[in-house]
């Protein structure tokens, strides 16, 4: 077994593109759930909206990348409005029904043949990210090494931009949550009726929160497709939403840095487990494959099994995150 290789992969994964994209999406979900208590089960829908805001602008309208950047936000905001209008006056669970349904519908519509001229159908859209990579000060095809990390030049550029965006957005959210605006959101999370009785327009605040978190999700979707250099409907699978939920709960909802911490922990575990299993000595691998059906395909499925199990156990035993205090949990259960 090549432990050096496994270690290198794992360390690189700790700061890699996936960490940035998922952490950013989780920052958006943190605004929704962590600070406002909104049950958004369709964060991947906002990511798709952001991705297609770029993709459709370049592919269908034939406009530039920079106009696409604007439309990333337009699509995200419009989706938030559409989802929020019918649900935010109702009980919390209706939002979850509509968001999960909408995110899956977006995927199905985007990959349909009818929409192929607009969205590229199942094959998707590529060749839109060039203006982004043209700005790169790094040689796109070269490998760069910094300490234990090793990345391709194009990924280094994406990571530099991605981490700057991620930290900037996190700080912005942190500032907002310390303001009276953020206080109103947290009050709505704790008790919507109390906030309403004290003169806060809960519906309006929830809509603002849904939009802010949705826009951040759209930005995450944009980063993802820039990194992959293609917009593909099937990458916006509902299970992504729940990976993001798992990440948020690992870190602890309602904490500023939890999306980043959660994302790093999640990807470190996944990459370590997968690479270790794939690197097992041939004999052990064959045995495992015959005993527990551990094929290459199934190693890929393990991460989702872990997400499901993790979500189930965290929601049951540690809804405050793995760093959350027991006191806080006690307050929840009152």
């Amino acid at each position, binding site marked *: 077994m090549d432990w050096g290789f496994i270690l290198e992969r794992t360390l690189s994964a700790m700061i890699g593109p996936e960490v940035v994209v998922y952490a950013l999406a989780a920052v958006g979900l943190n605004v929704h759930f962590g600070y406002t208590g909104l049950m958004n089960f369709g964060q991947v829908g906002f990511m798709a909206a952001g991705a297609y805001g770029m993709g459709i602008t370049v592919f269908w309208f034939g406009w530039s990348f920079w106009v696409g950047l604007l439309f990333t936000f337009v699509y995200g905001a419009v989706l938030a409005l559409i989802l929020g209008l019918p649900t935010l006056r109702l009980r919390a669970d209706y939002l979850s029904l509509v968001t999960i349904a909408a995110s899956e519908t977006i995927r199905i519509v985007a990959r349909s*043949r009818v929409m192929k001229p607009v969205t590229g159908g199942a094959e998707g859209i590529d060749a839109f990210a060039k203006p982004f990579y043209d700005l790169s000060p790094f040689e796109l095809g070269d490998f760069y090494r910094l300490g234990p990390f090793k990345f391709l030049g194009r990924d280094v550029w994406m990571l530099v931009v991605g981490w700057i965006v991620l930290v900037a957005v996190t700080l912005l959210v942190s500032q907002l949550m310390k303001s009276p605006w953020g206080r109103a959101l947290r009050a709505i999370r704790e008790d919507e009726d109390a906030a309403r009785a004290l003169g806060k327009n809960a519906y309006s605040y929830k809509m603002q929160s849904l939009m802010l978190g949705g826009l951040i999700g759209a930005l995450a979707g944009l980063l993802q497709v820039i990194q992959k250099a293609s917009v593909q409907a099937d990458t916006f699978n509902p299970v992504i939403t729940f990976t993001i939920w798992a990440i948020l709960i690992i870190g602890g909802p309602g904490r500023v840095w939890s999306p980043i911490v959660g994302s790093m922990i999640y990807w470190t575990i996944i990459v370590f487990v997968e690479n270790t299993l794939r690197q097992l000595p041939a004999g052990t691998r064959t045995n495992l494959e015959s005993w527990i059906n551990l094929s290459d395909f199934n190693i890929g499925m393990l991460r989702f099994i872990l997400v499901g199990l993790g979500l189930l156990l965290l929601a049951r035993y540690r809804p405050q995150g793995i760093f959350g205090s027991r006191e806080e949990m006690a307050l929840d259960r009152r």
Partner: protein
Amino acid sequence: MLRIRGSARGWRRATALTFLACPAAVGAALMLASPVSAAADGSDTTTSTVADGADAAGLGVVGTIEIVKADGSKSPIAGVVISVVGAGEATTAEDGSFRIPVPAPGDYEVELDVATLPDGVGLKAPDRNPLATTVSQDGDKRVIFPLIEGDTVVTTESSVSARRFFQLTLEGLKLGLYLAMAAIGLSLIFGTTGLVNFAHAELVSFGALMTYFFNFYGLAGVIGFLAPLPGPFGDGVNFIFATILGMLSGGVLGWAMNRWVFRPARHSGVSLLAQMLMTIGGSILLRYVFVYLFTGKFRTYRDYSAQRASTFLGLELTQKDMVAMSVSVVVLLVVGWVLLRTRTGRAMRAVSDNKDLAEASGIDVERVISQVWIFGAALAALSGAFFGFEQVKWDLGFRILLLVFAAVTLGGLGTAFGALVGALIVGVAINLSTLVIDSELKNMVALLVLVVALMVRPQGILGRRERIG
């Protein structure tokens, strides 16, 4: 307000009866219908799953591209390009035939290049192109692309006929009936516990997978060394019995989920929102355990899989669907009877209606919740078994989850009869929508129904307005 009294023994008996009555009703109904099914069985091209020693090198996808004229004669079409993603492509010969070799058994996508069809000829089912298919080790896989005269687009416009309308309505009712069985459980679990069970979709998949499993491997397939035994132990059992066994397994899974996961969570004060997250976690866990064990391929049941639709009053329906629809109606009537006439059912409704009041009038709420899980999961499993007619797949349930949500919300979350009404409306609406929109997009209608229902009447058709504050 219901006043329900009863000894513990009475409770147990009622539960057991309810639990047994449903599969028994399915069995009885299927048996009555089985001569029809058996007749169809003759034409069934039953294939065994694994045939040892087949030469993998000789595998391919084959077919004949031909058009059936109005007078019944067939005319082959040459020069049509067919491709198999990841394997290669071929052009049809003079007799319309083609063969594309594939490297290994597995799932493939076969696509017909519509541009190479002659003018005036189109695909009958454009949504089935590309066509997903599975090549087994047994040999060549035959695929069919049914063609019709007239371009597809033109056809769609000109075919808004009465016949098509009724055909779609019929298919909508079929979808609605199957959906209803899945939706009732979801609604009742919500009614009694306040929990939206996102893992309900997996209970539907579980029903299809277990039915498939019993259909192929019988009762003892799980335990390797018993596999060589003859049926019903080693070999598969007939689909009818497999369905009943699938339903029972579903009930057991429902019971277990409540007993070992959600009941302890309720008792230790886990909030409803956290419980909802738990159902999501459970849903993903189960779904990916299914794909781990079952692989991503889709499969078909061993029995009745190659039935052709028969025509009745100008409407087409396969016999198995006819039987399954009748069974669904019977089952739903039984469910209605149980809910309205039996003590168990009345208790379920009473708890859904007002938990505290029900508890105060002496109902053992926990027992009712357990019954609802068993009952709802068994119904979901039956629905899954029927949805599996088209294809049995690991995420079969998740694909219809959106429809179930729309049905339950439209009917009124928490009301069993609302779920039934909602499911029928959603089923018919989705199918009729293909008169105007592409069938690939038809599930969008469910989202539309969901959103409109929430805006116009959030409590649902049969729900009551709730008090706020």
